[in-house]
């Protein structure tokens, strides 16, 4: 495996590891109830978010199963932290990876999650040679469900009342995609208007 080259640039975004200075940007969304399910450490206030940031700053590469790579998603131009994406290396022999992603609701609906995830899938399959990437979501999270389907992920599981989450019966979906199913066409960018014929 060649060494990991960061940051990663997409059309509108830069994906890089977290830095100390990201604390304000992170405080804007990390403790929101709608976000809590999808983060590594539950947080209620700035102190706990600082703790979560410290952990995410250590998620810089995948060396062994159990490791996580977490990348801050930065908007080019104003350098705003719009969210973060993470890849967990779940199982070495079977090449399994899990992705998690969060976008600050103030920046939602602009396709940032999809753009960042496409770059993360390229990294998972091409660089880390992962065989299957999966993601878990609340069964009522319609934005996230649509997004995963748009990325070509298949619904593999729909668990009903299989666990308690924050005192209530939970509903959980699993989406997955295999290396051979991932359409790298997202890499082919639309040409700017002026380059189009006719």
């Amino acid at each position, binding site marked *: 495996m060649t060494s990991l080259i960061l940051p990663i640039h997409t059309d509108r975004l830069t994906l890089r590891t977290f830095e100390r200075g990201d604390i304000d940007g992170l405080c804007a969304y990390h403790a929101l109830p709608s976000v809590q399910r999808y983060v590594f450490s539950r947080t209620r206030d700035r102190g706990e978010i600082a703790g979560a940031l410290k952990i995410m700053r250590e998620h810089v590469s995948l060396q062994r199963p159990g490791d996580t790579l977490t990348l801050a998603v930065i908007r080019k131009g104003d350098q705003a932290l719009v969210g973060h994406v993470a890849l967990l290396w779940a199982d070495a022999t079977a090449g399994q990876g899990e992705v998690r992603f969060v976008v600050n609701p103030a920046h939602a609906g602009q396709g940032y999650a999809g753009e960042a995830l496409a770059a993360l899938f390229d990294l998972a399959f091409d660089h880390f040679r992962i*065989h299957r990437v999966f993601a878990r979501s609340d069964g009522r999270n319609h934005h996230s469900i649509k997004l995963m389907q748009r990325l070509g992920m298949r619904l593999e*599981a729909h668990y009903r009342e*299989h*666990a*308690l989450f924050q005192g209530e019966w939970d509903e959980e979906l699993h989406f997955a995609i295999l290396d051979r199913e991932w359409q790298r066409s997202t890499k082919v960018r639309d040409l700017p208007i002026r380059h189009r014929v006719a």
Partner: protein
Amino acid sequence: MALYPDYPIRTERLTLRPFTRGDVDAVYAYRRREDVARYLFDVALSREECALAVQQRIGQVALEGDGDKIILAVELNQIASVIGEVSLILRSADARQGEVGWIFDPDYQGQGYATEAATALLDIAFGPGDLHRVSARCDVRNGSSWRLMERLGMRREAHFREHALFKGEWDEEFVYAMLRREWLGRRN
């Protein structure tokens, strides 16, 4: 939650009871077979491994904490001998989650004995066991196992593809499940 069922459990044609040391030969008769082991985590067992497995099962009769198992010998009354086994594992005491499994001697398959034994086990799981949800899993190629799940009224909740390696090949797995209210609805 704690579940200590009253044994034996009797159904129309069967008796479900804890294993005893005398069951080794009957268990060996089916656990030695490749066709039985094909979709099990275990490979076909030697007689010594079988004796050890039976020894372990003797104590697996109640559920208290996460991971506890009830594994019962299923006797066919007509011949008074063991033809298979059924299991109930407590996955989460907090969320009242269980998982069932079954292995039957091929000489006695195709007559509804597994269905009859599993029904009795689910009655225990959702009755005195007070579980909220019971699941079961199998290889997608194991048609007799998932057809049994469907006969019991379980719903297919998951179809995982290549999520793990199983006996050196990519695994493809179904998970079925049923909620307490669904089971009680069927039984009334």
